[in-house]
């Protein structure tokens, strides 16, 4: 492997880490705070991709500029879904939340299928695929932009959770539900915000992905899977953990893929199993 190739692979992995961190960010937040493994997360991502796609196709809005729009749409939808559905089962056993979010995923995917058809779509702009070269390493603008947006949103969420009143209430609820309630936190409202923020982040991830990969209504499942793996690898409870998990995932995926692509997924998930055996607290790292 030449140095140039190694450099390119390294850059590919860094660029992928960013987008994957954003993919897992909302999923991790909802899981960590509400203890809900949201199987509809991937479907939210796909919805975000469609928002950007249609704004670009119909109104010629630049895909990067449509990110706030898709975040807003998904935030609102997330809020509604939490108030109307998730809230009903918040105290139910884990299995019930699995069933509900799984059903939600099927419903959303089938509705997208019905309204937008199963055709593959991409957002292609005049600058798609263009980039600059650093030595022998090529850096595409869109991927770099996506990394920037991801890091910005990760940092923004970290700041929000740390420094705002609602953010602190969210963290407090995640740490100890009853104590939070006793100190006057309105748990229902906190949960709704949490779920809505999670969905909003998924919307942003979808907007970015729409420029990077061709998507169809069924794309979400694989991203839910990835988000899950990233959360397990990194552990919950902290925004930084998501970035760590995403980086591990991306580096393994890209470096194994560079030499043994047919095994890349197998190795990534083997690593996950290994981690579960050796460091199960990786998952339960909520209060770590």
């Amino acid at each position, binding site marked *: 492997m030449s140095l140039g190739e190694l450099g390119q692979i390294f850059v590919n992995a860094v660029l992928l880490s960013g987008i994957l961190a954003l993919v897992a960010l909302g999923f991790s937040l909802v899981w960590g705070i509400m203890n809900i493994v949201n199987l509809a997360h991937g479907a939210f991502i796909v919805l975000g991709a469609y928002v950007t796609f249609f704004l670009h196709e119909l109104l010629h809005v630049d895909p990067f500029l449509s990110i706030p729009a898709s975040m807003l749409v998904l935030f609102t939808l997330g809020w509604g879904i939490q108030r109307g559905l998730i809230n009903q089962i918040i105290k139910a056993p884990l299995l019930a939340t699995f069933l509900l979010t799984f059903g939600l995923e099927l419903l959303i995917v089938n509705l997208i299928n019905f309204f937008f058809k199963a055709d593959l779509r991409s957002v*292609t702009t005049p600058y798609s695929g263009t980039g600059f070269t650093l030595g022998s390493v090529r850096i595409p603008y869109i991927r770099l932009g996506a990394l920037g947006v991801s890091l910005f949103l990760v940092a923004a969420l970290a700041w929000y959770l740390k420094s705002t009143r609602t953010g602190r209430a969210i963290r407090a609820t995640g740490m100890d539900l009853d104590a939070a309630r006793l100190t006057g936190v309105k748990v229902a409202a906190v949960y709704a915000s949490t779920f809505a923020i999670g969905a909003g982040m998924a919307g942003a991830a979808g907007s970015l992905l729409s420029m990077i990969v061709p998507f169809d209504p069924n794309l979400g499942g694989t991203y839910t899977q990835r988000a899950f793996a990233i959360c397990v690898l990194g552990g919950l409870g902290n925004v930084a953990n998501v970035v760590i998990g995403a980086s591990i995932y991306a580096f393994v995926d890209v470096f194994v893929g560079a030499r043994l692509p047919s095994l890349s997924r197998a190795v990534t998930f083997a690593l996950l199993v290994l981690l579960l055996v050796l460091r199960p607290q990786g998952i339960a790292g909520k209060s770590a």
Partner: protein
Amino acid sequence: MKRTALVSLLALAPAFVSAAPAPAADKIVFGAAVSLTGKTAKEGEYTRDGYNFFVDKINEMGGITVGGKKYKVEVKYYDDESKSERTAQLIEKLINEDKVTFILGPYGSAPSGTAAPICEKYKIPMIEANGSAESIFNKGYKYTFAVLSPAKLYLKGVIDLVLTKDKNVKTVAVLGENEPFSKEVASGAADYAKEKGLTVVYQELYPTGTQDVSALLTNIKAKNADVVLGAGHLQDSLLIVKQAKDLGVTPKAMGFSVGPSSPEFRENLKGNADYVFGATQWTEALKYNGDDPWKTPKAYGDAFRAKYPKYSVIPYQVAESSAAVIAFWRAIEKANSLDPTRVRDAIAALDIMTFYGPIKFDSRGINIYKPMAVEQLHPDGKKYTVFPASVAERDALYPMVPWDRRK
């Protein structure tokens, strides 16, 4: 899609009812289990429409002549719901309960593979039009035939085309999806490239549903391959072109087994789709002159559109399926018998030219004699058939213009 499937089922209902009594003696009934619902409902519909179109034509012409007598033709359909285990059950039912003696194949390699052993068991000939994995044909079946070119030949045309354009081509990279059909396409392409004296500098498979091929492309870029061949499905082909541009991978030619022939390829990639080659079983632009009621692909296409106006472009699945009925028609007349075994022998000996191309089977039952055509997307926004040269519509554009030198 669900709704159209339902409508087409309803449309079929009268056919089921009328076919319920035992087939009359002056009729030949073919059996078919086609996916009219489920994952491949659309392709199943193409298959059915292709069968029906030629069956109707035979009836218009008076029927199939056996022993001086004209027999009308009819197809009895079942919906295999895109599940290959269901296909096998339905083929068994068609043979045992409906007493059909000839089978038209289902849609797809997997269901064709489960239907074949059933036909073999009852010695009922099946001509299939939509299953090109050779795994179906390496089991020694004597009663299964496929009119389409096998998977391993999919990218042969692209390699041949590049070689006629450029004597200095030396290196090929092949990347394929890790699933049976694409694996055969990929290894077939690599083997053929080696046979032609090219060096295969890269040959790897990626997992189904991959979302990132940058690792593979980085490696290919380092190897500086002249030709990049992709053997996967539409989404993979789109991803490979996108990321090739991202990473500045600029081979002299890029070709795919599946993808470029679909309108979605251009819709997704816009100008980045230009110069890409795509394999296809058949296009309307091919210049075959066959011995059948239409003779040329164009005449077939026009006649088909007149009858089924919802098709603006005729998918190759439709033509393949009509070709399967042509093969049965010619074989039955040649055997001059309705005995399944005799018809089977006549199919095995078939050697005809049709609007779809040559139909002739090797000892395993595959039509290795029909070349795959190659299409290319041109900068004028259109797609042209560029290979084989003798039947092509336009000259191929070669080499591919590097990404940064396009407008």
